[in-house]
């Protein structure tokens, strides 16, 4: 088993509105996979599909090597899930919620759960309805981690949390991963948050996966280059042109946004009679924005 999560050609449509089109996604086992996308791009829908909460219209889904939804109960016993919105029963206390949740997971680690509860500073007698957003977020993570999952699925786990809580949550995740080499699938629209610890990144926009690549490539591979005497038709390039823009009045200087850039690729420009003037690094957010822009239908490409 190489992939903890596999989606092949998955499609799903909600009436005449939103549609997930031909989604093919692979989350390597043991990786920390960041699932990026703007609000409304379909991240939560994707998660619900591979968690078996929704039925796809077409396509194939495998989770931890097993078919979804056929073997779903067995799969979910090994999956820790933190949803976008709290799903626990508000009238319970923390302790009651833990006992309830624990009853469904044979792999529940009671002592470790207790330690983690202390670390996350949660009071077992506190009622969930009276907890702050941050405390609830920590509780959800505690529930997910205490069952010692092989796959941890986090849907915008830090959304709306203050920086301190956010740090606690992410630290707890990282600690768990370092101990167990579990696979983590974390969705967010906050790119800089994922930047620090994700190995892989998938970018979703408008129901389509526009990019899926190692984080390093994502961080380093998107550049803005300034080219003079650029060819009208670039031909076969060793990199992916995301956007061409900024043709000046004389038509001499262009700005290209490219993906997958590596330094030896300078030679290409010599081959086409163009001159590479400048290579500008983009931060992750700028790169993310350029990726999204390039994926959208009104992208300006030559």
């Amino acid at each position, binding site marked *: 088993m190489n992939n903890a999560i596999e989606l092949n050609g998955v499609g799903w449509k909600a009436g005449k509105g939103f549609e997930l089109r031909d989604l093919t996604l692979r989350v390597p086992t043991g990786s920390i996979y960041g699932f990026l996308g703007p609000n409304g791009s379909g991240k939560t829908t994707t998660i619900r599909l591979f*968690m078996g909460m929704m039925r796809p219209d077409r396509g194939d889904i495998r989770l931890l090597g097993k078919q979804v939804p056929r073997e779903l109960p067995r799969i979910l*016993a090994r999956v820790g*899930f933190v949803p976008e919105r709290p799903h626990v*029963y508000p009238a*319970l206390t923390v302790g009651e919620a833990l006992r309830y949740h624990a009853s469904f997971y044979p792999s529940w680690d009671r002592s470790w759960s207790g330690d983690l509860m202390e670390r996350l500073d949660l009071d077992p007698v506190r009622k969930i309805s009276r907890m702050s957003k941050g405390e609830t977020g920590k509780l959800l993570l505690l529930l997910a981690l205490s069952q010692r999952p092989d796959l941890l699925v986090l849907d915008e786990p830090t959304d709306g949390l203050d920086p301190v809580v956010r740090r606690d949550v992410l630290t707890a995740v990282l600690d768990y991963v370092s101990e167990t080499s579990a696979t983590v699938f974390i969705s967010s629209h906050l790119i800089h948050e994922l930047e620090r610890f994700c190995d892989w990144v998938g970018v979703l926009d408008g129901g389509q996966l526009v990019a899926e690549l190692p984080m390093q490539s994502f961080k380093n591979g998107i550049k803005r280059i300034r080219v003079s005497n650029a060819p009208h038709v670039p031909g076969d390039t060793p990199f992916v042109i995301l956007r061409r823009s900024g043709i000046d009045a004389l038509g001499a200087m262009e700005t290209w946004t490219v993906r997958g850039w590596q330094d030896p690729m300078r030679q290409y420009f010599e081959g086409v009679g163009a001159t590479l003037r400048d290579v500008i690094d983009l931060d992750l957010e700028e790169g993310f924005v350029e990726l999204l822009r390039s994926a959208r239908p009104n992208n300006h490409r030559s």
Partner: protein
Amino acid sequence: MYQPMLFIHWKQASWPLLPISVAAFGLPLLSVQGMGGNVGEEGLFAAAYSPLAVIGLPLYPILAFLTGAALALTSWNWDHQQNHVYALSLPLARWEYAMLKMGAGAVLALIPVTALWLGAHVASASVTLPVGLSAYPNELGVRFLLAVALSYALFFAMAAGTMRTNLWIVSAAISALVIGVPILASFGFADAALQFLWRPGGPFEVFTGNWALIDV
């Protein structure tokens, strides 16, 4: 899994269940009020009167109906509020989850049923029955249990379904009543139409008939 499920259901259902149980205990006692501890000594002087205990209060089947409904609706209440995400994320087949819930509710249903059974025994013991009258506390308890079970099962099925399914059911029921019954009545089958649900063998048979604690 079952114990925590039972605990969760208790947490949700305790607030309607306690007053229902008090009512279930009190109803048989209320029904023998006016009997003055000795049937025949008090009451109206005129044509024969029927003590409440004998004619059978319609409150018994109403209470049974409400008990089942309250248990079923509270069983699914939190799930509906949280959009069933929690249940769907648990490593449990859907039918298993529903069975656990159903079993939890069935156990909780024993509380008001037992309360009524105890109340019926206390009420029967508190009156001296004359020749010709008998008390049936056990039978009343069993009937109540069956009625609660039916009501619970019906509402559980509805509460477990989608809002769309329930709207279909309610629309069909209303259409049958508003359109179907008058049509059948024009052919002289109103009796049969309206009694279909209540007649022997019908789904709501248990709610009709003799609910008397004390009878001839």
